[in-house]
């Protein structure tokens, strides 16, 4: 090693963004000579004394996406609650009755509508429970693990909700049109209110399904950005 020129020592701080005190380079112990007087030759990352980075300029994009995620969750909650309530209160009794039989339709009589009620309620409850996590991601956009967990649970609830909405749709279509080959009579001719309510509930739950898909895709974009 030549002695005429001093080697330039570049102390590199191995600090992950958002962590605490960086470990200091071993001063001049290992350097063969003192670092040059010009500080411009040495590159240093500034030591972060504040443990949590709030409102850093580079987080703007992912914070915006996290806020959009939060808003979408609130938007999806309304239709789901409406679908659950509409299905649950879709009791209808016809004014026609015979000696042995009273014509009545309730969501209980169709397992698909029961499934829709339960799945909508579960998804609505999940959205409420995931709101604090989403708010935390807005405050601290560096957390990709939380976004990933939200994506995982969103996917599972999406599958559940889609399944319930599709099964209810099949039964509603059957109730509206009937089936000639299987000799299934369309019951919507008699039960107007019941049919209207359940059809509306199905439409609302599909709206929530679309919002859930947007949530999943948005979370994937946000994970990639960081």
């Amino acid at each position, binding site marked *: 090693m030549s002695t005429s020129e001093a*080697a330039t020592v570049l102390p590199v701080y191995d600090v992950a*963004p958002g962590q605490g005190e960086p470990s200091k380079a071993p001063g001049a112990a290992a350097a063969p000579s003192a670092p040059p007087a010009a500080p411009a030759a040495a590159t240093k990352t500034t030591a972060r004394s504040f443990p949590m980075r709030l409102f850093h300029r580079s987080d703007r994009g992912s914070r915006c996406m996290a806020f959009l995620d939060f808003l979408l969750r609130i938007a999806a909650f309304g239709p789901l609650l409406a679908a659950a309530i509409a299905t649950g209160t879709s009791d209808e009794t016809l004014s026609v009755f015979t000696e042995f039989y009273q014509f009545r339709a309730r969501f209980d009589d169709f397992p698909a509508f029961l499934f829709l009620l339960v799945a909508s309620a579960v998804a609505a409850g999940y959205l409420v429970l995931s709101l604090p996590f989403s708010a935390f991601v807005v405050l601290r956009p560096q957390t990709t693990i939380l976004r990933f967990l939200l994506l995982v649970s969103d996917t599972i609830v999406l*599958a559940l909700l889609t399944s*319930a909405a599709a099964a209810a749709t099949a039964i509603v279509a059957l109730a509206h049109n009937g089936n000639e080959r299987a000799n299934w009579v369309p019951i919507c001719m008699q039960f107007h209110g019941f049919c209207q309510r359940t059809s509306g509930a199905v439409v609302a739950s599909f709206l929530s*399904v679309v919002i859930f898909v947007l949530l999943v895709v948005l979370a*994937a974009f946000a994970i990639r950005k960081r």
Partner: protein
Amino acid sequence: MSSANEATVIHVDNTTGKAPVTAQPPPAAAPTAPVQQQQRKSGGVPFLLRGGADGFRRCMAFVDLLLRIVAFGPTLAAAIATATSNETLSVFTEHFEFRARFDDFPTFTFFVAANAIAAGYLVLSLPFSVVGIIRPKATVVRLLLLIGDTVMVVLVTAAASAAAAIVYVAHEGNMRANWVPICMNFHGFCERTSGSVVASFLAVLVFILLVLLSACAIRRRPC
């Protein structure tokens, strides 16, 4: 210079000639070390078992490829089995012949179409998955695959659930709506469609796993 917590010191010699390499390589568990050792060749290690974040992503992409091949079978089988589920009873009257086909139920038509689309999508996404193996850093490909897989999850789940609802009514009937269970008469038709629905739900599970895998592989830090 010997403790593991100390920062890496790199000596840059300003003279001509090589600088002495006294810096220790950064530990592999610190991905934020600004100095990457590019010239470290993983010689002798199999392609998929290399370490680091890239090796992890490669492994995930390989599992992704395998899962796609696994999901192709059930979707294609479900589509074909339902489309060929023609059954004619030996009983017939003067005006009417008892026959059941998937055409008679719009739900089953949707089921066949959705499963065929899913099977075609799986075949078309195989090259993208291979690209994901070869280039572990290409997160755009994985993002595209994730979006496609999410759409497929919704489509196949909807088709399978709607068909399941119809199959349930065909098996059990509905007392309140006076819908007769037709499976008493049409045995083969019912069996075929029930099996198709089960296969389609298996494919849904695999699609969900694909979504989760893609999301895991997109992360900068290995999860």
